[in-house]
């Protein structure tokens, strides 16, 4: 990547984060809270995009990672009396471990087989949560609001559900995700990952250990997704199997593809557009899924690279 485009790219990300920071002071209550949620979900989509967009591996089981982080956070706070920070660290370590073990198995397959294996593993975790319901509360899930305590900032106590806390935690997380992924993608590792996406066999022939790189990408993506799940549990205090279902694995795929796979801002844009689309249409008709379906089809026909991907291809070449 040319230096010029690197500067543009960082400039743009900084701009997005700055705008998101400033906009919180003028957003009406409802949109303020929607933005918090979108930023958390977008971080999940960014994690997903790292695997799909930059390594070319399409997963249908990312809810497994999201749910691992989320449940580790929730259950450790509930049963072990962990603080949120301890829960987050524990959740990160556990998701990291799960990602590596899963990757060692799943990466033996590729393409559509990989897709199905991820899907099956995701289903297995979903069923396991249901099966061990006496411990996990099964489909109903549980809330950790009363166990969280308060967060002390500058000597003042705040609840985690405080809108300002929530918004800025989500924003910090989003910013960290954007920066870390950009750094990795622009590093030599990132270029090799992109090379694998473009032509795996050639990359292998060039002497790179493709498997290790793919394992790294999967572990990184899975762990980030797990952290998103843990943060979602912390900020929205509900933990349930709805976050382990296959629909929750399809969601980041749709957000990423709609926004533009392999672009840094795409997942954020895709998540936001989709969130507001459903929110807006469901106010008009209960058949919002129909409209969502139509929009998906039309987008994929007219903007096959997603919103950002199409922009990059047609007009703004320097977009990261």
């Amino acid at each position, binding site marked *: 990547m040319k230096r010029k485009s690197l500067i543009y790219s960082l400039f743009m990300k900084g701009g997005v984060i700055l705008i998101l920071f400033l906009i919180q002071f003028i957003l009406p209550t409802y949109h303020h809270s929607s933005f918090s949620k979108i930023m958390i979900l977008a971080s999940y989509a960014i994690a997903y995009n790292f695997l799909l967009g930059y390594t070319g591996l399409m997963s249908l089981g990312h809810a497994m990672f999201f749910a691992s982080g989320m449940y580790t956070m929730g259950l450790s706070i509930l049963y072990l009396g962990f603080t949120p920070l301890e829960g987050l660290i524990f959740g990160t370590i556990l998701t990291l471990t799960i990602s590596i073990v899963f990757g060692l198995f799943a990466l033996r397959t*590729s393409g559509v087989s990989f897709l199905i*294996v991820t899907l099956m593993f995701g289903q297995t975790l979903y069923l396991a949560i249901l099966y061990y319901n006496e411990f996990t509360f099964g489909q109903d899930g549980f809330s950790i609001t009363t166990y969280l305590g308060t967060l002390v900032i500058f000597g003042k106590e705040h609840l985690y559900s405080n809108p300002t806390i929530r918004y800025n935690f989500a924003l910090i997380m989003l910013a960290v995700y954007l920066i870390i992924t950009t750094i990795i993608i622009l590093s030599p590792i990132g270029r090799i990952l992109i090379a694998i996406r473009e032509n795996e066999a050639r990359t292998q022939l060039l002497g790179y250990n493709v498997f290790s790189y793919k394992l790294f990408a999967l572990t990184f993506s899975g762990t980030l997704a797990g952290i998103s799940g843990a943060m979602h549990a912390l900020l929205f205090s509900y933990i349930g199997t709805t976050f382990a279902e296959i629909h929750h694995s399809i969601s980041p795929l749709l957000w990423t593809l709609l926004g533009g796979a392999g672009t840094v801002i795409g997942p954020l844009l895709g998540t936001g557009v989709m969130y507001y689309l459903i929110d807006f249409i469901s106010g008009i008709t209960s058949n919002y899924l129909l409209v969502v379906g139509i*929009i998906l089809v039309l987008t994929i026909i007219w903007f096959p690279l997603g919103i950002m991907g199409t922009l990059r291809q047609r007009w703004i070449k320097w977009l990261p």
Partner: protein
Amino acid sequence: MDTWIEETLPMVFLAVLDGTVTAFVLALIALGLSLVFGVMRIVNVSHGEFFMLGAVFSWFAYHWTADSVWGFVLALLIAPVIVGFIAVFSERFILRKVEYNPESTIVATIGILYIIQQLTLMGFGPEARPVEAPIYFRVSFPWFGYSGYKLLVAVMSGLCLCGIWLLLKRTKLGLYMRATQQDYEIATTFGVPTKKIYASVFALGGGLAALAGVLVVPIRQADHLMGLEPLLLSFIVVIIGGLGSIRGTIIAAFLIGISDGIISVFYEPTLAKMLATLFVVMILIIKPSGLFGENYQ
């Protein structure tokens, strides 16, 4: 020994019987997906919805004719055709536009899935509606009874599978399909109307799913969300059998149907589903291209 004969034997017998019936149905549903994948190299996520449409049209046929036999016959004739047309329509106006790109196709067919599901919810309603079986009798075994119609479904599925086999091996269309599957470019050069073949394969895949829906609906009910489970199961079957291998699909359907039957008789149901799922994953990990897959990953 006596308790074994009294308690375990009936369980094993039932597991195998029920598993075999499941396997036949599964093979029929998965066959369409397998054909589409084999020839067109795309994953059709809306395949389960074609199955659901078959079941729903069957209910309408039953409802209009107010007769279980005529309704069934009518549904057998029209449901696959209507669904075939829907499939051709989506192939022509959606899949062709995205040039069968694998990832775009997945997203597009997820879109089609939502559209079909919601239209069905609007036109058919949220409830599960029963359809009476055209022929109904109970087969009595020493320990328990079993649905006679279920056995018939297995037989009819078997006949359909044979029909498809003949179609592929003995007809010009089958020849064209196999040619397109082996090499699209060369087939085109040799005058195979590959575009038409794609459309017909997609229609055939949808039609088969709808046919399975018609056959299955009397032992279940029609509802707008019924497509997801068969979709997941057929995914598994197709992948385990090996992408693009019809023989593999059928063998995998039996492997999965019967093992699922046996596991779920001896373990707690949800645990059984977990074990069955992991079992499938293990097969894939040991043999990533599936049991009979060509090695194109």
